[in-house]
C-alpha cells in the first residue's frame, strides 16, 4: 500500500476508463472504485468488455484514456509494480497439471521472488487449512476439480497480494465445493485482500458486496446486490441482469 491509496482506502480507482480497438469502443468511460477488503463482482454478457477492462487493471494492457490507479499505482507508468501486488486466477488456466501440488507452490512463489522457507511455511499452512497436507506430492492432473480450484485460489494469494482477480473461477464444481470456495474468498477479504471477480452465474453475484454490470462496453449499474434488486424490482440478480441486457437490446432495435 502506498500513500495515494492509503489516503482514501480505494484499492482500485478508475475514472473515465476508455479502451478503443480501431473504431470499436470496448470500454466506454468506466468510472468506479473498489475499497480495500471488498468483494467486487464484475458482471456482463459475453463481449460486454469485462476481459478488456480486467487486463487493463492487471497491468497487461494500456487504456486509450482515463485515469486508473491499482494498489495506488498508475496503470500507464507503473504496471510492473501493479503486477507484483496482485494475484490472478481463472478457470481456464490456473495450475500446471504435470507438476505436483508442492511444485506449483514453489513455481508461483518463485515468480514472485519469495524465499523458499516462506513458500514452504505458507504452503504448509494453506494445505493444512484445506486438510490436504498428504496431497503435497501429488500431481495436479490426478486431483478432482474441487481440490484443484481451492489450490489455485491458495496459490493466487500465496504472495499475499493486495488484490486478487478471479476470472470466472467457479465453473463446474459441486455446490458444496463452490460454497467452501466462497468461504475461502470471504476469509481472504476479511484478512484485507480485495477480491475482484467476474462470473456468468448470477447466483454467484449474490456473494459479492457490490456489483457492476457492463452492457456493450458501459457500466449500466453499480450497487449492492440488495439495492440492485430493489432498483430493478427483481427477485434475483439473474432477473436484474436480464432486465438490463434486454432493455439494451430493445433500445438497439429502435
Amino acid at each position, binding site marked *: 500500500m502506498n500513500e495515494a491509496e492509503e489516503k482514501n482506502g480505494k484499492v482500485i480507482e478508475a475514472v473515465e476508463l476508455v479502451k478503443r480497438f480501431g473504431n470499436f469502443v470496448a470500454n466506454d468511460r468506466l468510472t468506479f472504485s473498489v475499497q480495500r477488503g471488498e468483494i467486487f463482482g464484475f458482471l456482463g454478457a459475453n463481449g460486454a468488455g469485462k476481459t478488456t477492462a480486467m487486463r487493463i487493471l492487471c497491468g497487461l494492457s494500456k487504456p486509450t484514456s482515463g485515469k486508473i490507479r491499482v494498489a495506488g499505482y498508475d496503470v500507464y507508468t507503473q504496471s510492473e509494480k501493479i503486477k507484483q501486488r496482485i494475484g490472478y486466477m481463472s478457470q481456464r488456466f490456473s495450475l500446471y497439471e504435470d507438476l505436483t501440488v508442492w511444485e506449483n507452490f514453489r513455481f508461483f512463489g518463485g515468480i514472485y521472488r519469495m524465499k523458499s522457507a516462506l513458500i514452504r511455511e505458507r504452503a504448509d499452512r494453506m494445505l493444512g487449512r484445506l486438510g490436504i497436507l498428504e496431497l503435497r506430492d501429488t500431481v495436479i492432473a490426478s486431483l*478432482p476439480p474441487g481440490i484443484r480450484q481451492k489450490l489455485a485460489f491458495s496459490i493466487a494469494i500465496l504472495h499475499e497480494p493486495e488484490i486478487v482477480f478471479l476470472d470466472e473461477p467457479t465453473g463446474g464444481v459441486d455446490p*458444496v465445493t463452490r460454497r467452501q470456495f466462497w468461504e475461502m474468498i*470471504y476469509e481472504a477479504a476479511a484478512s484485507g485482500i480485495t477480491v475482484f471477480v467476474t462470473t456468468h452465474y448470477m447466483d454467484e453475484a449474490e456473494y459479492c458486496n457490490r456489483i457492476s454490470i457492463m452492457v456493450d462496453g458501459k457500466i449500466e449499474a453499480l450497487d449492492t446486490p440488495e439495492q440492485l434488486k430493489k432498483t430493478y424490482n427483481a427477485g434475483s440478480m439473474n432477473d436484474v441482469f436480464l432486465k438490463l441486457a434486454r432493455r439494451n437490446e430493445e433500445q438497439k432495435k429502435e
Partner: protein
Amino acid sequence: MPDVSITGEGVGKSYGTTTALKGLDFSVNKGEIFGFIGPDGAGKTTLFRILTTLLLPGSGKVSVEGYDVVKDYRILRRILGYMPGKFSLYHDLSVEENLRFFAGIFGVDVHENYHLVKDIYSQIEPFAKRRAGKLSGGMKQKLALSCALIHKPVVLVLDEPTTGVDAVSRREFWEMLLRLKSGGITIVVSTPYMDEAMRCDRVALMQQGSIMTTGTPQEIIAAFPRKIYRIKGSGILDILRLTRNMKYIRSAELFGDAVHISTENTDQAPTAGEISQYLSAQGLSGHTIKEVVAGIEDCFIDRMKQQPDKHE
C-alpha cells in the same frame, strides 16, 4: 404409464482403476426434458457418450427408442442428435458450411429440413459466412444445436450446453428447448448448474458416478426432510463458525450473502428464536433469521452429505 424413450439398467463404466459410473438405473419418457444434474466428475459425459453409442458400457444395458446402444448403434446414430460439451464443429468452416456438412453426413437436404432449425438458425444466419471458430459463445451454441437438429432426431442429447454461456444466452437457450419439446422431441440434458434443474420435467441428481435421486424438481424439493433457516447479517464468517458449533445443526453453508442452516430431524433441534438468541449471546446482534423453503441446491447438498465415500 408414459411411453418410455430411454432405459438404463445397471449402467457401469470404469477407466482403469477409476469407476466413472457405478451401475445407474434410469428411464426417460418420450417427449420430456430430462436433466442429469451434477458437478464435473459426476459421470455425466461418460453416460452421454454411452447413450449416443460413442462409448461401450462396461456393464449393464441401455436402450434408446427400443434399440440397444451396443447392437443397434447404426440405427441409433440416425435418430439421435448429440451436442457434445466441448465445441466440436469445424472451426475453419463457415457457419453455413458446418450446417451443410452435418446435413450431408446424415444424407438430408438443408433446404428440405430447414424448418426444423429455422427458429434457432435464423438468429445466426446474418453471420452465415463467418468461420465457426470466430463466433461468440452464444452463437457457437446456436450453431451446434442447429447441426444436432438438422437430421430430425427423435432424441436430442445435450452435454452441458450452457457452460460458459452468459445469462441472456442461457435464458434464450432454455426457451428454445421448451419450443423443441413442444414439437415432440425427447431431450436429455446435463448441467452443473442447479438452477437449470427447475426447467426440466424430471431430473436425476448425480454425484461421483451415482444417481442420488430422481424425480420432478418439485418432488425432490417436497421430499426435503428438514428445516432450513436463512440468516443474514454482518460477520457472516462468525455466523458460520458459531452455528457449526451448535448441537443438532446438520449443516451451515454460505448461500450468497446469507447463511443457510439445516437442522437435524429431532425435537431437540434449535428453533429460529433459539439460534438467534445464541448468536446474540455470542455478541452477534443485528442479524435476521427466517425459515425458508428448500431449493434444489439445498436438496443436492443434503444428499451429498449422505454419501459415505466423499473424498473432500
